[in-house]
């Protein structure tokens, strides 16, 4: 199954949830906000939201800024 994550194509196992992807990327779910197909997911949804073929994901975090 293919998804777009932060602008890059990525292959993932069917049935993966958002939390699985974050774990694979070594990302702390508390530190990241996830936008899936334009909708911002609430943190509890990371454990339940199933990724679909062609999903467009944006993983956003805070960085330094003025």
């Amino acid at each position, binding site marked *: 199954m293919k998804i777009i994550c932060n602008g890059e194509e990525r292959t993932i196992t069917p049935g993966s949830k958002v939390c699985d992807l974050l774990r694979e990327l070594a990302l702390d779910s508390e530190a990241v906000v996830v936008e899936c197909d334009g909708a911002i997911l609430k943190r509890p949804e990371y454990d339940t939201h199933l990724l679909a073929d062609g999903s467009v994901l944006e993983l*956003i975090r805070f960085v330094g800024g003025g």
Partner: protein
Amino acid sequence: MLTIAGKTFGSRLFGGTGKFASPEVMRDALAASGTEMVTVALRRVDLADPADDIMQVLDRARYQLLPNTSGARDAREAIRLAHLARAAGSTEWLKLEVTPDPRTLLPDPVETLAATEELVKEGFIVLPYMNADPILALRLQDVGAAAVMPLGAPIGTNQGIVTAFQVRIIIEQARVPVVVDAGLGAPSHAAQAMEMGADAVLVNTAIAVAGDPVRMARAFAMAVEAGREAYESGLGEARVEADASSPHAGLDFLR
């Protein structure tokens, strides 16, 4: 004490977290500054460097987080970033930055006003970054901005308060706190802003790129305190308009 949106701050110096050489230097400089509110930006996670997380060194118990919408070029993008910021940081506080020109990073007044109005309705505590336009400041206050943040000079230029004349008008007319943001390149600029009556200042570049950011942060903190003390003790900016030695208007007609 400074109060914005019902929250009090012990320090009138707000800090930015950008442009530092390392997270550790940033952490130490912010601590030295005594600030109680820091800005952060939102960007895509760098998937090649997942451990790079600024929030590891920012103590949220110590600092009110003020996410900014830097990168937004119009109200729509700013509103999207605002939603992401609220989700990422679990905070309603927002520094609204709408900067369509990447060269000058000057804020778009039309988009800023539109975004402020919308975001206030959605429950955000909006602190809009704006050019020092007194009418715009009033319009932003009318739609519910919690404070206004007029620039002293464009971001990163360190020119000081080029907009002093207008900032004074903004301060005079303001019904909410005025935070001078951007362009403060030296502690004396920060002191000047406070002497003018600004409620607070936001400093990022000048501290981050100083030779010794920790010491510079302390210098800014002292300057902000000095400027505020001077203002509160009734500093009169010496500008005499009437020349006492010139002949007076005729008042002979008075009985």
